[in-house]
């Protein structure tokens, strides 16, 4: 596997249907109108020298290396900024140009260190390449003139260095930060010869607004901004394209390797989800894969108070299998189950549910999507017929009004947020519906038209009020409704939303949002052109999560904002493979492709393929498993790649459930919090160590490619296969591609998917079958998957979790950019420098009432439990609302959350908990005990070496 080499065309693709034909160095080429001469030349195979141009950024025209001569035109225009024109005759190599380019390079090198041989970028430096390309042989200015060689390095960022002595002031970093990432953390300060790249106000990177997305490093043509890992390890020798294992955006990366060592992860320009962009997690936070705390050997223990004992794989597998068999013999077939992972591949997930259904003989399988997007599946399936978002990410480029509800894209889905910001800067309108003032409400060059800071738990009321405005002000898209939706259901719904009690004026008191804003937001969404709704867990993680999803679906239908580019209903998935885990039949009631287990035809197809009879009854969902465990009837659980103790609500209840089981098997990279209650620990593999596929939030199936040997010995799919075969299932998968073939065979929406096809197309958005051989970027074009779109009446039913004298504040939770989920991975990287603890955001008024000052340790308690954490006083949250993240096990926000859940799916109500805040003098009893338990559970007895 050599290094992948992508052509840099110098300027972005010009989107035009018209073509022009020009001649470059005697060769004729036809290109889209608006294409730069530089890009046209690159398309024709001629590389014009360049330094400030790169095809991820708009042409800038500053380096002056790419000048060309054009017949009939005076001077030497820059090829990057001059569009190709019909009949143009361009020369890229003439004596004048050679002299000119030589002159420019001579100037560059007169202010550049002459340390190529010891420079980390040696061999991968565009300045070096260009000096060669123009044939520079001598710098006649000498090296004693004014220069920048004594400028100090900035090593403040943990992942990259900034060495201004090597800077050629091409502004690529600044432009990348502005155009691609949209943070505007960098500038050129000063002017003329004194111009220099400056983070923030001339500060170190870490003191600036930099979010460490890596776009500047990616854009830098020299060693000025360069990964510390590259400096340490040296230039890579091979590279492999793979998919990030963090969030639901699904960025494609080129893993650049030196031997078995990752040198760096480079965002892949041809990646459809990220288009060459990245965030601090995917780009830099992969060091957990080799973290010293990673567990590489299987371990078992008899009780959870024992230390762990390292064992061989065969012993661990046999031990587990015996325990499960014993438990099923003693407590019945239904006493065991499994949890699939939204972080593992589709193939791995598919195998776990297959193990449960075919091996354990029940349907007790669930996935962590239960606790995040299960309402999305239910709600969108009910209304539209498909349990998935309707658009691809790039669709946002066509959106005119963007509505964000209960999502914080700049933290949760940063790479997509950057794309969204590009569109917002280009003029799209923005409505943010969120209790907290997320960054997108107002961030440089982006400002929401409306921020509706609703009281947590009132999404449905707000969405219905917006629908009321649309229906009562005659803003409904009648043509769309007539052609595409069920008329009776529409009329029932329209009559429902039109009732006076759903008017913004009536709802105002409930949701706390001024009626005028509700009306204006409803009008804007209905009349502002293409309206696209993006939502996250702030919609789903409520007792009315499913109702809210359906309310969103209603809004999109009533305005006709569905079935084309630029519109749609877009769930932003939390983890890398939430969509995939759901698709793969991880839910206890359905097989892959969202087909109910009771459906005879589907079941029999699986039975025939697998050669076993399947239970036709739905199995247990995660909370039900825990309830059943507490009841003493559910005894063994195989958990692949999840940390339910930390991630699931009402930690006390989770721990009680786990503690009640006889055999808890945790398969993970690290001894996580759930493993404190485990009897078997199976070391898992990272995404770098296995083949497979992830499916991102836009239904895009992408390849995960093995770049190194699994340090634990097996990919996760192999471990599941070992367990299955110990159960006597006789599986014989040699490669995950065979698993995908099986999925395709058994799942109509995946019928056209195979590894070969993925390699060929790069990625595929399901459905992919004979009807859509290239996949389906945008769904419901021309008609809904279910036929007619279904309007659903969305009565607002307030949660039973209510504030009162004891718990007068509402806690809502979220995530932060640098950390991921329970932090298992990110906490084991340098990302902790950005967020080393979870803090409680509290409004100044509420803080003052309680005598809380910035940074104080406070006690946060609810009916469910209490934790202590530090306070941050901010008006990002409204009075009466507090907010925290759940990335750190020592603060365990989920000790606080309750076991209230969505009516339809049991998705927990993480986002609304009545709490009280008071000053604390130390950690709570629970925090102390769980800390002790974790400590105890990290004891490992190693076999003496033979």
């Amino acid at each position, binding site marked *: 596997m050599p290094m992948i080499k992508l052509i840099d065309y110098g300027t972005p693709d010009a989107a035009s249907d018209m073509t022009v034909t020009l001649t470059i160095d005697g060769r004729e080429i036809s290109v889209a109108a608006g294409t730069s001469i530089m890009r046209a030349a690159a398309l024709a195979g001629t590389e014009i020298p360049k330094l400030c141009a790169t095809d991820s950024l708009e042409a800038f025209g500053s380096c002056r290396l790419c000048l060309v001569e054009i017949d009939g035109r005076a001077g030497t225009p820059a090829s990057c900024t001059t569009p190709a024109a019909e009949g143009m005759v361009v020369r890229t190599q003439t004596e004048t140009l050679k002299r000119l380019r030589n002159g420019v390079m001579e100037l560059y090198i007169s202010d550049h260190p002459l340390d190529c041989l010891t420079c980390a970028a040696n061999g991968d430096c565009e300045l070096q390449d260009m000096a060669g390309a123009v044939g520079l042989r001598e710098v006649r200015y000498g090296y004693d003139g004014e220069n920048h060689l004594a400028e100090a390095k900035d090593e403040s960022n943990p992942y990259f260095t900034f060495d201004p002595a090597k800077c050629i002031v091409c502004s690529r970093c600044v432009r990348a930060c502005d155009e691609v990432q949209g943070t505007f953390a960098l500038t050129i300060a000063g002017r003329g010869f004194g111009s220099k790249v400056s983070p923030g106000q001339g500060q170190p990177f870490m003191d600036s607004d930099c979010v460490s997305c890596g776009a500047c490093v990616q854009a830098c043509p020299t060693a000025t901004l360069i990964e510390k890992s590259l400096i340490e390890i040296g230039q890579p020798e091979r590279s492999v394209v793979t998919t990030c294992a963090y969030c639901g955006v699904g960025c494609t990366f080129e893993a650049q390797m030196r031997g078995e060592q990752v040198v760096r992860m480079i965002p892949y320009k041809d990646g459809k989800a990220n288009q060459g962009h990245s965030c601090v997690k995917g780009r830099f936070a992969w060091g957990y894969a080799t973290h010293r705390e990673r567990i590489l050997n299987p371990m078992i223990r008899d009780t959870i108070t024992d230390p762990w004992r390292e064992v061989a794989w065969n012993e661990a597998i046999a031990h587990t299998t015996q325990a499960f068999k014993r438990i099923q013999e003693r407590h019945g077939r*239904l006493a065991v189950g499994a949890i699939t992972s939204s972080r593992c591949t589709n193939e791995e997930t598919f195998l776990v549910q297959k193990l449960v259904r075919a091996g354990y003989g029940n*349907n*007790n399988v669930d996935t962590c999507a239960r606790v995040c997007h299960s309402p999305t599946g239910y709600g969108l399936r009910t209304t539209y017929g498909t349990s998935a978002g309707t658009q691809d990410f790039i669709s946002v480029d066509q959106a005119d009004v963007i509505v964000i509800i209960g999502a914080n894209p700049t933290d949760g889905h940063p790479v997509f947020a950057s794309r969204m910001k590009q569109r917002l800067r280009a003029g799209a309108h923005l409505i943010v519906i969120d209790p907290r003032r997320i960054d997108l409400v107002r961030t440089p060059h982006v400002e929401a038209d409306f921020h509706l800071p609703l009281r947590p738990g009132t999404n449905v009321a707000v969405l219905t009020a917006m629908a009321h405005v649309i229906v009562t002000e005659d803003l409904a898209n009648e043509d769309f409704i007539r052609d595409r939706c069920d008329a009776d*259901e529409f009329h*029932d719904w329209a009559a*429902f939303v039109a009732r006076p009690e759903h008017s913004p004026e009536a709802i105002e008191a409930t949701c706390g949002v001024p009626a005028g804003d509700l009306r204006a937001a409803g009008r804007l969404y209905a009349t502002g052109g293409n309206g696209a709704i993006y939502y996250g867990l702030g919609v789903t993680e409520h*007792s009315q999560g499913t*109702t809210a999803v359906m309310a969103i679906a209603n809004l999109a239908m009533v305005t006709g904002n569905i079935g084309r580019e630029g519109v749609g209903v877009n769930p932003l998935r939390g983890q890398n493979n939430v969509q995939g885990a759901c698709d793969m039949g991880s839910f*206890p*009631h359905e097989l892959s492709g969202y087909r*109910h287990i*009771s459906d005879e035809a589907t079941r029999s197809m699986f039975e025939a393929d697998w050669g076993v009879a399947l239970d036709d*009854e*739905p*199995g*247990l*969902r995660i909370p*039900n498993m825990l*309830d*059943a465990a*507490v*009841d003493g*009837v559910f005894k063994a659980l195989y958990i692949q790649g999840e940390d339910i103790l930390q991630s699931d609500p*009402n930690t*006390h*209840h989770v*721990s*009680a459930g786990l*503690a009640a089981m006889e055999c808890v098997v945790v398969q993970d990279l690290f001894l996580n919090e759930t493993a404190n209650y485990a009897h078997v620990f199976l070391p898992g593999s990272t995404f770098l160590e296995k083949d497979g596929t992830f499916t991102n939030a836009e239904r895009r199936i992408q390849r995960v490619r093995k770049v190194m040997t699994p340090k634990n010995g097996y990919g996760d799919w192999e471990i599941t296969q070992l367990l299955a075969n110990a159960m006597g299932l006789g599986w014989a998968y040699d490669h995950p591609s065979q698993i995908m073939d099986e999925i395709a065979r058994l799942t109509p929406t995946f019928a056209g998917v195979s590894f070969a096809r993925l390699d060929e197309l790069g990625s595929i958005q399901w459905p992919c079958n004979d009807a859509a051989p290239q996949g389906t970027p945008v769904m419901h074009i021309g008609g809904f998957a279910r036929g007619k779109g279904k309007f*659903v*009446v*969305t*009565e607002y*039913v307030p949660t*039973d979790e209510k504030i009162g004298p004891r718990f007068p504040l509402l806690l809502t939770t979220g995530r932060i950019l640098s950390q991921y989920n329970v932090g298992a991975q990110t906490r084991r990287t340098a990302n902790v420098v950005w967020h080393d603890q979870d803090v409680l955001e509290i409004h100044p008024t509420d803080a003052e009432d309680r005598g809380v000052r910035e940074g104080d340790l406070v006690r946060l308690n609810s*009916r*469910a*439990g*209490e934790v202590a954490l530090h306070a941050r006083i901010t008006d990002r949250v409204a009075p009466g609302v507090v907010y925290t993240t759940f990335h750190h096990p020592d603060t365990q926000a989920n000790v606080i959350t*309750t*076991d209230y*859940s969505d*009516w*339809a*799916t*049991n998705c927990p109500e993480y986002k609304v908990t009545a709490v009280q805040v008071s000053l604390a003098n130390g950690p*709570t*009893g*629970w925090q102390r*005990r769980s800390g002790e338990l974790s400590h105890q559970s990290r004891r490992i007895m190693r076999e003496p070496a033979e």
Partner: protein
Amino acid sequence: MSASDEDHIATTSDERLVVMANQIARFFASQPGDAAAGVAKHIAAYWDPRMRAHIRAHAAAGGAGLDPIASDGVAALTR
């Protein structure tokens, strides 16, 4: 695991099932058509047999706490 110094929720599984059934009932109550049938269909599709057995048993024992529509829905369960 003891948590005696903390006042956290301690509901039994049956209590939870009643809460869940009532939540489902409150949704279907607002829908056009037969609410009880909707409840029954939903529970049949998503609850495992043991949970269904428990709620039926609870209903049979007087159905303490069950909303009328939830009760009707449970009664309409065929399995």
